[in-house]
């Protein structure tokens, strides 16, 4: 699987420190994400996983450190990064429909004063097809289930046609169909050489879905290919003592 990866670095994070008021959330984090990998960001609640993603996107003020996307600062490479927020972050009773939300992914490249037209509509429909939501294109967004909401957000990110995708807990509370759709999608993105960073919760599926992991708990515990880094020792360091279940999890994967 590693042969797809080029030597190029998609995301380079150096000495990243983020604090909310007096409280440091991320402390001196160094990570370098190779191009074309599926990376899971793991850690307990409050470990700074969401903050890590948001600081890459310049959505939270960074106290120190530097972040580069394909060698350039995020501000100058914004169009190459797509973001899939937690679906709870918006009001789903907003008066709009699915296709309209997906078309929003084109607003960045449309520029000022231009309205989305036939071309944008077609791109949005294509993205909806990729997440198996074509039938819902004209559905009011308040009528969607959690999994469908998640797929709408994924389609909006796909429409951006970025190089790097940052996803905040896309598997959180979704149904089995959606989970399968997302996994397929992640694989397709990797085949196309895209880099995907996913905040993830379910340790059971890490080895199956991802090829790199970043273990966070305020600071970086470990980062690298799953086979090297996803070890009992590292997980214990990340999650503390509450990992009695981990040893069984890890023995399962022994070849």
């Amino acid at each position, binding site marked *: 699987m590693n042969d797809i990866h080029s030597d190029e670095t998609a995301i380079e994070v150096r000495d990243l420190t983020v604090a909310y008021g007096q409280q440091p959330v991320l402390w001196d984090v160094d990570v370098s994400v190779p191009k074309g990998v599926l990376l899971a960001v793991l850690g307990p609640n409050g470990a700074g996983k969401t903050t890590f993603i948001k600081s890459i996107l310049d959505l939270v003020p960074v106290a120190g450190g530097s972040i580069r996307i394909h060698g350039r600062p995020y501000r100058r490479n914004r169009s190459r990064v797509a973001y899939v927020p937690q679906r709870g972050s918006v009001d789903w009773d907003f008066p709009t429909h699915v296709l309209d939300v997906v078309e*929003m992914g084109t607003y960045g490249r449309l520029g000022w*004063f231009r309205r989305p037209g036939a071309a944008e509509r077609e791109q949005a429909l294509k993205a909806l097809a990729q997440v198996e939501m074509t039938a819902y294109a004209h559905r009011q967004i308040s009528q969607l289930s959690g999994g469908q909401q998640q797929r709408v957000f994924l389609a909006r990110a796909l429409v951006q046609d970025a190089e790097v995708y940052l996803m905040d807990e896309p598997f959180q509370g979704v149904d089995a169909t959606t989970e399968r759709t997302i996994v397929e999608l992640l694989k397709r993105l990797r085949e196309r050489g895209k880099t995907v960073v996913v905040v993830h919760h379910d340790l059971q599926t890490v080895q199956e879905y991802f090829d790199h992991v970043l273990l966070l708990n305020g600071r970086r515990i470990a980062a690298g290919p799953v086979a090297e880094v996803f070890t009992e020792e590292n997980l214990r360091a990340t999650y503390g003592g509450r990992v009695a279940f981990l040893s069984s999890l890890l023995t399962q994967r022994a070849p």
Partner: protein
Amino acid sequence: MMDAISTLFSDYTVRTVALGATLLGITAGALGCFAMLRRQSLLGDAISHAALPGIAIAFLITGSKSPLVLVLGAGLAGWFGTFLITGLTRRTRITHDTALAMLLSVFFGFGLMLLTFIQRRPDANQAGLDSFLFGQAAALMQRDIQVMFGIGCVVLFLMTLFWKEFKLISFDAEAAHTLGLPVRALDHLLTALFVSAIVIGLQTVGVVLMSAMIIAPAAAARQWTDRLWVMMGLAAFFGAVSGVGGVLSSGLVPHLPTGPAIVLFISAIVVFSLLFAPNRGLAFRMMRQWRSGQEFRVDAVLVDMYRLASQHETVDHPHSEQVLNAMSGNARRTLHLLETLGLAQRIDDEHWALTESGTERARGLVEKRWGEGP
């Protein structure tokens, strides 16, 4: 009544005033949709109250009651108010609602103080400034309408121009940022439009009730549609209708201030929309709930009868009401409903049986829900 209205409309002043109210209703109503969707409903109230000292200060400095001067004063004070609210929320531990409430009362109190001070001066020119409290449409003059028209058009034009950007920052500001939009600048622009829409209404509606012109049309319009642009159109329409209605009734009824009259009109529209709008309306939802409850009870009794009958040779075997009561609670009313629907028939005082179509329906239900035959 109709005569009085047609006389009013033939009157030049009244036509001017009605035009002003229409403009105001359209601008405030349309912009109010963004305010409501961004959960900034109370901001309008804070801005309009904060504008009062601005009006007083503008008059004190220039000695002029020219609408442009007063609107400018109101606008600057309103904008300064929102600036303080954002600053307080961002830099201190004061929450947004506390900052709003504080600012609203402090600015309004200060404005009242200045108004009192102005009225005590031996200066005849000050008369009429207090109409900014509750609005006095009769005092509107052609030059006021010109200012309202000018500002209203600019506001609506900018809103159409930045339509997709405003929609995106209202729905998902973080996504807007990652898509490369200057969210902070757009936010400031929208607030500025918001302030403009409010200050042009102050003379007509008054600082105390202006926020109703922003929020009420949007709240009513939201009930009727799930599309943003339809919602805006409806809100503008509701705003215009109540603006004209309020202005006319304040012209017909002596001593009725315009602000409260307009607010009564728009409140009636809101109440009607909350109750009777399809899908979201209260009446509609109660009806739907009652119907699905009724349907559920009908089906439950049908299935019970069917299952009882399936223990006998014939499906139309009669059952006593007592047994059915024990199975699905008070079955009597539902049985009568079944009879009306032609799904069950009464055999004697105590006994009921399924009709042919009732059997048919019950079989369908059982197969669908439990996947079994009799």
